[in-house]
């Protein structure tokens, strides 16, 4: 047994130093040198003040902004210090209530809208921090935002098109719109 104990502790200590201290510090050093902005969270600054991250969604409820995915984080939506999904199963009555509630909110804000309801606007994301919506979900909201900002729907559609990203490298993932970036452009180019 003694022939086991010393190697067990020594090898554990050695590999812990290499993988638990040397490795993360090396990655941190390279990251700071080569990709400093990404390593610190891809923050967006306006006049030097951080207003959000390009990768993390924010809660939007005002009619003159595009809204993002419903977020199931507690105690507030888009809580970026406590990520998570609703974990509601497909037959859970609470899921149906939540979806009905989101549909009612959308309809109340834009009663004349007869487009099909985009599924991403009424279902909670996995992280609760999804920064994106589908292009269909953005176009669904054009009429409401145009009215609230007294813009032409055509101009707003063009803005949505400008902020629509295709599949990465033409292959990976789904087409999408970054809601925070779109709203920041909206606020700076078309202030109320």
């Amino acid at each position, binding site marked *: 047994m003694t022939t086991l104990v010393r*190697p*067990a*502790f020594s*090898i*554990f200590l*050695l590999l*812990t130093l290499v*993988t*638990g201290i040397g490795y*993360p510090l090396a*990655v*941190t050093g*390279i*990251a700071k040198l080569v*990709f400093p902005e*990404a*390593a610190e*969270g*891809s923050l967006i600054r306006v006049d030097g*003040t*951080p*207003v*959000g*991250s390009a990768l993390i*969604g*924010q*809660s939007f409820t*005002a009619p003159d902004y595009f809204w993002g995915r419903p977020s199931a984080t507690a105690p*507030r*939506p*888009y*809580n*970026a210090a406590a*990520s*998570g*999904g609703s*974990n*509601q*199963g497909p*037959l*859970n009555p609470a*899921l*149906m209530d939540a979806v*009905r509630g989101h*549909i009612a909110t959308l309809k109340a804000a834009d009663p004349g809208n007869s487009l*099909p*309801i985009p*599924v*991403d606007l009424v*279902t*909670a*994301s*996995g992280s609760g*921090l999804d920064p994106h919506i589908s292009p*269909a979900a953005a176009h669904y909201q054009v009429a409401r935002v145009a009215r609230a900002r007294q813009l032409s729907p055509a101009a707003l559609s063009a803005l949505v098109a400008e902020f629509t990203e295709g*599949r*990465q490298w033409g292959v*990976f*993932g*789904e087409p999408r719109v970054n809601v925070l970036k779109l709203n920041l452009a909206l606020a700076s180019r078309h202030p109320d």
Partner: protein
Amino acid sequence: MTHHAWLILGLYLLVLLLAAWPLGRYIANVMEGRPLLGLGLRGGFESPLYRLCGVRRDTEMSWLHYALAILLFNLIGALAVYALQRLQLWLPLNPQGLPNVSPDSSFNTAISFATNTNWQGYAGETTMSYLTQMLGLAVQNFLSAATGIVVVIALIRGFAGHSATTIGNAWVDLTRVTLYVLLPIALVFAVVLVSQGVIQNFSPYQDVTTLDVTRYDTPRLDAAGLALKDAQGGVLTAPTTSRTQTLAMGPVASQEAIKMLGTNGGGFFNANSAHPYENPTPLTNFMQMLLIFLIPAALCTTFGRMVGDSRQGWALLTAMTLMFIGMAVAAMHFEGQGNPLLANLGVDLAPGNLEGKETRFGSAESGLFATITTLASCGAVNSMHDSFMPLGGLVALWNMMLGEVVFGGVGTGLYGMLVFAVMAVFIAGLMIGRTPEYLGKKIEAFDMKMVAIAILVTPILVLAGTAIAVTTAAGVAGIANPGPHGFTEILYAFTSAANNNGSAFAGLSANTPFYNGMLGAAMWFGRFGVIVAVLALAGSLAAKPRIAASAGTMPTHDVLFVVLLIGTVVLVGALNYVPALALGPVVEQLMLGSVN
């Protein structure tokens, strides 16, 4: 399935197999001690390290000695993770001042990471300090992965050896796998992940001023800080507004790379690979899926090389690939269908089921990720499995129930598949009345006992654990979703723990003394019960002579054997679990049909 889904699946298989082949040859070179690209392994810098650690490099171990070394090494790892969690408040790198973790949660997490399960009863960003994550959890991501790989290498040596009494030196094997295989690949991918937006820093959580006001309800508290309730017992709330968002930070990329490469799966954040700071782009998602299967696929090549017949490795890889394609198509199909109950409300279901999924990944790349992570005993998730459609969730559950042998965890997948291969030749031997042989080794009574233990340990833990949980108040208390889905949450938890997967139907409130204890035990025995049986098998096989193939030998590299192997895996999985599955996702699917 959409064209896009087929394209991604095809591209995935292509890149995976192209990358796995050279890596498998490289791993064989490392484990057989051949010189590597200028690093003189036989001399060089390893010798002083081993002298310092009291390791006699050229002394090989018997299977029992090897098993004791592995057990002791992992026990030390578990104790270190436990200690770090219990003391983190007083240790450095805790800018949020997160308190020490409770004893039962620390116990569960320590076992979880030492067994390569990475079941998470806690939420990372609100529980673990940066030091605990990088010095405790990430270290175990390396070491538990190394453990899995060295065990399968020992088993391969058992097949390859001629009348040998030893199966290698555990200390040398662990050191080499960690330093020459896991570390360099993780380092490269960690940097690539940062380039896409995965964070890597030691900063305190970052406050930002949001563009719009966030509106939400907070519980109203009395003078003593307790929530006020109305006459019906409902919590009274007050509307609250805020324009501050707090972004969780940390050394994520370094942990993320090894989390996927080592098929560990424990997220830095609660949302795991759904979190944009862990998995920011569709490209990182594709890379993460590749990293999960990379070493398990490569080890098939390693196996073929080390037993001196590459066709044997290809046969196993073919069986794994065929089963994987079937499962992936099923999961992507079911998640692509969407929830029919929402269609009744006027919702456009073309994008599929998006509850619990991220827009950038969509239903196809979430279904594919779920298949890979559950087949591979990884357990990372890029979408919430609890919100999958009943049959989509069934695929994830069934994947784990196959015993994590279709690619499977690093090392564990291949040794599990080799155990099934021995089982398959045994069944074939019974049918034709010959003593079964695999790779020239006679399969005898002791070997079959070890095979039976290795195959039966996990179903016993899963079914007994689930039965206890559903019949006790403490077990039922954790259920989040009503009806059969609640039963599935419990079944999924024990399946995930005993098979060392770590993914969850995460609605289950599992951070309680009951579940922390029960699942901790399931993880430990599900891991080391199998490992000890596999090492005993390795020792027994090593001691046998290798008989040359004769006309009566059943070939184990042809189509017939691949079919037999797939049949054995599926049959054992089905016989063990169909009754339990019928009570959960199958009933739920029938209810969905009737409600609709």
